[in-house]
């Protein structure tokens, strides 16, 4: 990982990842995007991918990926990042390609694109940030909004009789033959962050070794739109969200498919 650098008499044991841009974060207090960005940057550095990476940013708070990760990034229409990434990877199979998508993007408007990219076994990696709401547009219902959760478009709480159920995407995508790796992680405690890093490394390794489609779903906070303080938001992730969206690895291919 980061080389230890000697500074005067003391030794630096922790530095900003090379691939993380040194700018002030614009995200709300308690939001997990910053934490997830850092994990992504660390993994890019770990495998020396910075100069051969093309990221795909989607629509929502996640679009600002290009302000924080120091790699080439193409912007995608809402939900279409897996299709855009397919076009990049098919044109440049030697490059490292990832998408960074929110839950409205990946699990509502982009379900077709994510399912077919996974089913084709596109050799790319998907970072999926699930915070159970539409953050940028002001906290509307997402496909992952919990039953009973109040949002600006479910003012009386999400009711399955009207709005259906929250979708478990990591499990759904694990069911497809083309998926090489599918996992769900959280980043609400230091231990969870360490585990999340291990999962994202696995996902990156799948692409590097040509195993096919990989996805890591991050359970994430949106304190602003949840109407919670940052610490309360962490508790929600650790409690009701993890109960409904269990953490774990749902698919891990051991051998590449060969024709």
């Amino acid at each position, binding site marked *: 990982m980061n080389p230890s650098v000697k500074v005067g008499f003391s030794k630096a044991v922790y530095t900003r990842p090379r691939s993380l841009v040194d700018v002030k974060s614009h995200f709300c207090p308690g939001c997990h995007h910053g934490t997830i960005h850092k994990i992504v940057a660390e993994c890019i550095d770990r495998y020396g991918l910075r100069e051969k990476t093309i990221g795909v940013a989607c629509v929502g708070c996640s679009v600002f990926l290009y302000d924080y990760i120091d790699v*080439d990034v193409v912007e995608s229409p809402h939900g279409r990042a897996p299709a855009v990434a397919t076009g990049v990877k098919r044109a440049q199979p030697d490059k490292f390609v990832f998408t960074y998508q929110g839950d409205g993007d990946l699990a509502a408007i982009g379900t077709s694109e994510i399912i077919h990219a996974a089913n084709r076994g596109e050799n790319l990696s998907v970072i999926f940030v699930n915070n159970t709401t539409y953050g940028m547009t002001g906290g509307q219902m997402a496909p992952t909004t919990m039953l009973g959760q109040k949002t600006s478009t479910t003012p009386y709480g999400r009711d399955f009789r009207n709005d259906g159920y929250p979708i478990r995407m990591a499990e759904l995508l694990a069911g497809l033959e083309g998926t090489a790796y599918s996992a769900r992680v959280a980043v609400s405690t230091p231990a969870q962050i360490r585990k999340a890093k291990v999962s994202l490394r696995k996902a990156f390794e799948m692409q590097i070794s040509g195993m096919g489609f990989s996805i890591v779903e991050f359970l994430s906070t949106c304190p602003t739109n949840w109407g919670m303080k940052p610490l309360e938001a962490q508790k929600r992730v650790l409690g009701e969200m993890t109960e409904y969206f269990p953490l774990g690895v749902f698919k891990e291919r051991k051998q590449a498919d060969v024709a």
Partner: protein
Amino acid sequence: MSALAASASKRILTKGNEAICLGAVAAGCRHYYGYPITPQNDIPEYMAAHLPALGGTFLQAESEVATINIILGTSASGKRVMTSSSGPGISLMQEGLSYMAGSELPAVVVNISRSGPGLGGIAPSQGDYLQAVKGGGHGGYRLIVLAPHSVQEMYTLTMLAFDLADKYRTPAMILGDAIVGQMKEPFIASPYDPASTVEKPWALTGCVGRERRNVKSLHLKDNAIEVHNWKLHEKYERIRKDEARAESYMLDGATIAIVAFGTAARVSKTAIQWARKEGIAAGMLRPITLFPFPEREVSELARTVDVLLVIEMNTGQMVEDVRQCTPLHDRIVFLGKPCVIPTPEEILERIRLLAGRKG
């Protein structure tokens, strides 16, 4: 084309749709993505059969929505890339085309159009004119639109479409229909002139030895989106000024001038030949580029003839652009055949009527 160039080129008998594929491959396109829809399936089928052997990529996507975004990704990678579809599929691509225009990404999109609106039918139609030339998607942009009327032009205009798309960093459309797509006739497969290709220093290829780079259409800071809109506008104005193309057909001494494109123009040529034999001074101005529209040519023509007979396989779309070119609206006559191919007989009949009225 000079006799020398022609002799060095191959004469091929084939369908218009296949000529598009040959033109694309000759122009260096090695990436094609698409989704089946009648009447353009010859194009994906040809590309599926031939691109892999050329080291290229063919992919049948799950929808036209996915298709245009896969196109976006390959275009952002700096490669020449093409898709084809027909009306309903082209409608699904409008979101992606708007993003590509905003992100200044080139590509060639072929519309072998069919009847509409809705599912319409598979009969040839020119009902997609307004969608093609006025933007089509949201936000205010233009596509470069080329309208072939022969198998020869399906080949040459496809090569030109790649060059113009790259030159101006914007998507270009080939607007055909089932007739030019499905008809077979011989054409000269002239070699592609690589002098027209341009470097793509903006492509995303990994930031080796340079700052990271973005391809995007979102501009939130200060007045960046206003600045970006003016930049696009100036580009469209340059295209308007420099790239309008039209064919003048038998216009010498003409008193009746047809204005038609694509299949309607092709049929009109026969009617004009017949009219000339009868001593009626008929001719045609055929827009080859629909955007940019040959405004100056139409404007000048309106001053020199008695009648501009606008013929379209719709209920009147290009005629709006013809009216924009001249204040002499009383000289404009419209013959519409929505979703029907006009016959040379009925066009001749209209020419006779107009000649009689004037005579």
